[in-house]
């Protein structure tokens, strides 16, 4: 623009003579010339000026930017993987010698979740807590990274050479080489070891599990000629008598049993049938918690009990006559009652199970009863075709190893994935010390590795190839999901191959690796027998249905059972060292998820304790009377327990339901080496059992209180919930089968508000019109009758939702982070209580009390009925936590994830779920990330809605009892909608009008219609 030209051309009007004379004004009040910016050339327009200024501003801003960096895509892309999308692989998890099919979710090449394989007919898509938690051990920073020779690091080659040299030395000296392995279910490993012993003739392979379960096999060998443990199918049993057998808890096949047991535990009026579980036991086990009728017996009475049952049912042919005579009056009465119930069942529908620690004689008697009950045979509850692999009696082999070591015949002991220094008694450890060369191949530098000159790291099961055969003959290939996290860490089998080849070059010929070995075995020995299955298909499915290796039963010889040994158990104080419900034998003790998993019965984390009955607490002088307050004072006192094998100090917890004069304690704790998590947690109780002998009741010579000493026990549920009179709160409801049959559901609709309010809100108490959920509306049903309390859901949730481990100190304060917890309530009296397990998670209330109180609207309701938590928005006032009537919200009091995390532990995190920072609230989301994934899949496939069953929460997926049903409540045909119609359905705290989206189905006890204490905690 040029004002000058403008004026020149348009100067047709004028205001003064000056203007007219001068033309365009150069001076004066309104000097037009100054309208041009003086700095720039007059041709610069205002717009141009602005453009220049903004450009220079941008330039200035650009100068402040961080140097530009480019993201370089990986040159080697992952095979078959799209970044951001998960890839699932099948594998198989071996819980010692029990195989469970696994599907492992990987993201960008790293495994982030272990779940069950639906095609595997043992666990049918479900997963145990240990199986899921083993994922965390993969990333455990305490795993061994490099081989060690004496005190220095070494190479694999040098370590293997050292072992091979020792083998050759042994050959030269005419001594033996002991290869000590854990029990396993891998046919290829068995075959590899056979070939190894052929190539190295002085090698003796000894299977030495930390918990030996020989008695069933000894009994089966003598009466059936089958040296194996027969696995019952409880799905076929309507009356189950369990004599000290914890088949739902610490049994290796608990996952298998839970599913089949629970399938018969959810009656309705239309089908008022359920199984009847009678439990006779000394401790209070998880199985005992699920019992319909429970007898607490002193261990000295257990075998007499089963003998009386046999006498009642078998009559003349009974093989336990002498034991039956030892039964007390009460035992006899209880046994006769149990026999009546067994007899009442339809033929073949009743079964007797015996605890693994009971004598071979007791197992034989049980077999005799089962024989009389008609439940033995092909396709029946007890089918000898269904045996646990490698469950042959092992005690003799272990004893022989001990003798050989003591006599100096063993030059080299190679401990493969076993920890006898921790799990065996003093005599065995002394024998170990006599072996000149000791070597350990393991995941951790554990106690045995510490006493070994050579320590070699072993690969995790998710890093290595393998095979496993299940109880019914299904073969699965264990395939690695990830290359070993520490470069070049071979699997145990690969290490053996390397050593074998060094000792004898001819060993395995051309086969160089275990992977090749597995592949050629499957191709040569398995696939030809199953038509139409290729190697690829076998890997895709994760299972190869193979004919079970039928045991050659030599015909029933019950008489053989009569001569078997029975345990002589004294009538005094007895100690039971049982596997831990959460840690099993302690092999995964360095796993924070498992350490912090509350024991389903005691709710204890991070410790093992001495459990005693209230009566015993009084008898030992730990409590002054059986009054609840006085009993509570006995908790956490430390006692010294002395047996013939030694003495240990353990803190006491009074466990209602225990038999008197029994102390129950858990194995798997008290590690002195292994890793930061395991060390110093609990006490090693293996030392009170003898190596190679089946754990059983041990006579206690004395129990003395350590005066003034207390050991704080971190429980997730306070002990004193027992002692406070908190009234009959109908929060966990229980009814009898008789009531179900009679359609008497009064207890289900019972509320705590008895007067004044009717406790039923037929209309929402709101000024607003009710919200109409148009799309999905997610909801859940939890069947408390099916739930056994196994706690798989807790680990499933922890793994899926990146829930941190907080440690014992924080649990003591009450800050555990689990989004789902299992509330355990006792009913009845303190001596023999019943129990209800109520899984408690965010109820996603429609009228959520947490939502309106958040000042920053960080927790809100989704249009699909979810109560959502926006972590980024949360400022952490904790008001929502206070106002939550279920107390399911979890606050990050500290920066748990960040503080406890070190490489490579962070790789376990699920990238779909935010890792929470300190100061924010979190809680169950109904696995909202899975719901979104399901919706995307539905949309991609052109569906308007997610089909029923396509959106599955982590807890639901893992639950072996199928007690959790999740789905769309807006779909009337969905499983959850149908389940919500159950007459047993109730909502917890329905009387406070929060309208939860979770419906619970009342627990049913198989008992005649009668008054059952409604609600929990009715105590004396």
């Amino acid at each position: 623009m040029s004002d000058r030209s403008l004026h020149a051309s348009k100067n047709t009007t004028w205001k003064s003579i000056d203007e007219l004379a001068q033309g365009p004004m150069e001076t004066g009040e309104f000097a037009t010339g100054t309208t041009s910016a003086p700095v720039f050339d007059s041709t610069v327009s205002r717009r141009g000026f602005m453009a220049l200024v903004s450009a220079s501003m941008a330039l200035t801003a650009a100068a402040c930017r961080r140097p530009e960096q480019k993201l370089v895509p990986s040159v080697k892309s992952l095979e078959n993987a799209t970044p951001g999308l998960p890839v699932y692989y099948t594998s198989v998890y071996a819980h010692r010698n029990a195989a469970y099919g696994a599907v492992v979710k990987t993201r960008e090449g790293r495994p982030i979740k272990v779940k069950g394989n639906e095609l595997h007919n043992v666990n049918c898509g479900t997963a145990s807590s240990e199986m899921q938690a083993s994922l965390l051990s993969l990333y455990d920073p305490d795993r061994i990274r490099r081989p060690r020779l004496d005190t220095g690091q070494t190479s694999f080659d040098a370590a293997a050479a050292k072992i091979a040299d020792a083998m050759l030395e042994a050959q030269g000296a005419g001594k033996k080489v002991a290869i000590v392995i854990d029990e396993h279910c891998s046919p290829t490993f068995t075959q590899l070891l056979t070939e190894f012993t052929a190539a190295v003739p002085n090698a003796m392979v000894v299977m030495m599990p930390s918990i030996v379960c020989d008695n069933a096999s000894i009994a089966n060998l003598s009466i059936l000629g089958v040296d194996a443990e027969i696995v019952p199918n409880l799905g076929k049993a309507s009356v189950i008598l369990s004599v000290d057998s914890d088949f739902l808890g610490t049994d290796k096949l608990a996952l298998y049993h839970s599913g089949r047991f629970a399938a018969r535990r959810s009656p309705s009026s239309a089908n008022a049938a359920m199984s009847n579980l009678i439990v006779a036991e000394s401790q209070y086990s998880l199985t005992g918690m699920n019992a319909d009728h429970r007898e607490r017996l002193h261990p000295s009475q257990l075998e007499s009990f089963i003998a009386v049952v046999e006498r009642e049912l078998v009559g003349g042919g009974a093989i336990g006559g002498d034991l039956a005579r030892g039964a007390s009056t009460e035992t006899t009465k209880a046994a006769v009652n149990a026999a009546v119930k067994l007899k009442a069942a339809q033929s073949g529908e009743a079964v007797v199970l015996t605890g693994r620690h009971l004598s071979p004689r007791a197992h034989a008697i049980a077999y005799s009863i089962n024989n009389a009950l008609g439940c033995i045979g092909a396709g029946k509850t007890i089918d000898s075709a269904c045996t646990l692999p490698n469950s042959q009696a092992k005690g003799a082999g272990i004893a022989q190893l001990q003798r050989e070591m003591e006599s100096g015949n063993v030059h080299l002991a190679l401990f493969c994935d076993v920890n006898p220094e921790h799990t065996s008694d003093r005599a065995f450890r002394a024998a170990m010390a006599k072996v000149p060369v000791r070597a350990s191949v393991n995941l951790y530098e554990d106690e045995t590795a510490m006493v070994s000159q050579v320590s070699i790291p072993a690969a995790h099961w998710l890093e290595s190839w393998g095979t496993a055969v299940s109880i019914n003959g299904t073969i699965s290939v264990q395939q690695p999901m990830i290359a070993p996290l520490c470069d070049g860490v071979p699997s145990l089998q690969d290490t053996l191959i390397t050593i074998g080849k060094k000792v004898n070059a001819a060993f395995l010929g051309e086969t160089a690796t275990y992977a090749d070995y597995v592949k050629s075995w499957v191709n040569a020995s398995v696939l030809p027998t199953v038509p139409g299955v290729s190697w690829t298909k076998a890997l895709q499915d994760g299972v190869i249905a193979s004919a079970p290796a039928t045991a050659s039963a030599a015909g029933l010889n019950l008489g053989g059972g009569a001569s078997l040994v029975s345990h002589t158990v004294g009538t005094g104080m007895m100690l039971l060292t049982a596997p831990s419900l959460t840690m099993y034998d302690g092999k995964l003790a360095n796993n924070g998820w498992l350490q912090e998993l509350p024991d389903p019965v005691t709710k204890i984390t991070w410790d093992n304790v001495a459990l005693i009955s209230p009566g015993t607490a009084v008898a030992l002088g730990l409590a002054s009377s059986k009054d609840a307050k006085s009993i509570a004072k006995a908790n956490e006192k430390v006692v010294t327990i002395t047996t013939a094998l030694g003495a240990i100090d353990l803190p006491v917890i009074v466990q209602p339901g225990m038999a008197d004069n029994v102390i129950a304690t858990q194995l798997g704790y008290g590690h002195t080496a292994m890793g930061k998590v395991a060390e110093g947690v609990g006490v090693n109780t293996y030392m009170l059992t003898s190596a190679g002998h089946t754990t059983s009741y041990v006579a206690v010579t004395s129990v003395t209180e350590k005066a003034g000493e207390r050991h704080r026990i971190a429980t997730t549920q306070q002990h004193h919930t027992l002692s406070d009179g908190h009234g009959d709160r109908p929060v966990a409801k229980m009814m009898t089968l008789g009531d179900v049959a009679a359609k008497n559901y009064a207890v289900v609709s019972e509320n705590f508000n008895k007067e004044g309010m009717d406790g039923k809100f037929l209309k929402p108490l709101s000024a607003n019109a009710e919200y109409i959920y148009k799309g999905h509306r997610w909801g859940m049903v939890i069947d408390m009758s099916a739930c056994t309390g196994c706690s798989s859901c807790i680990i499933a949730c922890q793994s899926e939702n990146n829930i941190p481990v907080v440690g014992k100190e924080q649990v003591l304060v009450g800050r555990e982070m689990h989004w789902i917890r299992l509330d355990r309530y006792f009913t009845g009296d303190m001596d023999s209580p019943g129990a209800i397990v109520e899984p408690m998670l965010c109820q996603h209330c429609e009228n959520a009390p947490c939502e309106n109180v958040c000042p920053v609207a960080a927790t809100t309701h989704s249009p699909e009925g979810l109560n959502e938590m926006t972590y980024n928005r949360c400022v952490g006032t904790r008001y929502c936590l206070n106002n939550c009537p279920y107390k399911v919200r979890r606050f990050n009091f500290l920066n748990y994830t960040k503080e406890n995390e070190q490489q490579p532990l962070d790789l376990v995190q699920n990238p779909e779920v935010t890792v929470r920072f300190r100061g924010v609230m979190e809680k169950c989301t109904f696995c909202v990330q899975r719901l979104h994934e399901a919706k995307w899949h539905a949309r991609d496939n052109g569906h308007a809605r997610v089909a029923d069953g396509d959106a599955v929460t982590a807890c639901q997926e893992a639950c072996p009892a199928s007690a959790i049903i999740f789905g769309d409540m807006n779909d009337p045909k969905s499983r959850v909608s149908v389940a919500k119609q159950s007459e047993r359905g109730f909502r917890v705290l329905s009387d406070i009008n929060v309208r939860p989206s979770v419906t619970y189905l009342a627990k049913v006890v198989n008992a005649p219609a009668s008054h059952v204490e409604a609600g929990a905690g009715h105590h004396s």
Partner: protein
Amino acid sequence: MTVVQEQERLQASLLGEEPVREGLVLGNPSVRDVTARIASIVESKITLKYLATLAVTGGMAAWGLFALYYTFTVGIGAWGLNNPVGWGWDITNFVFWIGIGHAGTLISAILFLFHQKWRTAINRSAEAMTIFAVICALTMVLSHTGRPWLFYWLLPYPNQMQMWVNFRSPLAWDVFAVNTYFTVSALFWFVGLIPDLATLRNYVKSDIAKKVYGVLSLGWTGSTRHWHHYEIGYMILAGISTPLVLSVHSVVSFDFTVGILPGWHTTIFPPYFVAGAIFSGFAMVMTLLIITREVLDLKQFITLKHFDNMNKIILATGMMVGYAYAMEMFIAWYSGSDWERWVFINRAMGDYAWAYWTMVVCNVVSPQVYWFKKARRSIPLMFVISIFVNIGMWFERFTIISTTLHHDFLPASWGYYSPTWVEISILIGTFGIFLSLFLLFAKFVPVIAIAEIKSILPGSQPKHHHTPHS
């Protein structure tokens, strides 16, 4: 007549020997005397004793601030809170300090509007306490969140997230209530101070002090026009403050009443909280005034009559609080809700019964001695009782918060809460902040409203009868 003589005479009148209406200012000082007496406190030298006391309270404040720093760096995990008990000493302290402030507002606003002349000698320090107490309360409320650096998200301001606060949340209401309270109280106090600051400006000798007081007195000359506007402005602020006496603590009580927990969800809380706040506020004013009066020798202005009147209010509000305790129990029974019944039985007999009974003894039992005039006029006794009431009122908030949270609906989720050293330090720290500010106030600001007290001097009011003349 000397102060001592006058007190003796009053004592005699109490015993019925000679009926006399008690004056509000003793010793019949002249207007000039009043100015000199009060302004001299500001002008006097800072003593070593003063500095030592300030060092102690400042040390307490510093220790508390260190505990807050520790909390900010470690997280709320530094405290003893856990999953059932999400609030503990933090909110207890917050409600306690907010409550303390209420006496000041009541004295300055409501008593002013009702022409209660005896308020004049104590209103200045009571208002100062209000402000300092609210500062302590704000410290607690800002530090109690998990992510305190995001405190401004609690304020409604337009932002790029397009997020407002949740107007349904009582905590958002709290923010408004407390901020309004702080602003109005500070304004009211400052406006009341203007004539006195001008007096000080004229009185002090040092140049700096003259400048500071000069700026703060906003050019006050004491002209009739100034006084006219001042009186109107003061009256308006008193009017604005009056509803705050009722509203602030009602809103604070909504934090609990809007919750659905038995023990919180109750309609009695707003009036009960207001009564409790005035109760505790008067007790705190009492504690501090007894000391101030002794140390600064203000017996002439702050007389036993003032204390007598305040003790009557303490007795009255203490009875209201006691009534509320009884009514809570009654309603719990009468409601027919077993949740309610159980919570109140647990309050009196459960794990925190010690806290409940401490509260009852301190708040309900101890003020009962004030039925006796002798007790209302005994300085040592009222000092002890004012401390009892402070303790009792702190425990009232603790009881409401902790007993309700630790055992609520599902027995499986129950827990127990006890504080850590950090929380104890923070409480000590808030006392340190409060006392330090009060010490500074007592030294640098006229502790008694000079201008106002002149209006109640004997003879200053035309209608003033029975003025005892010496």
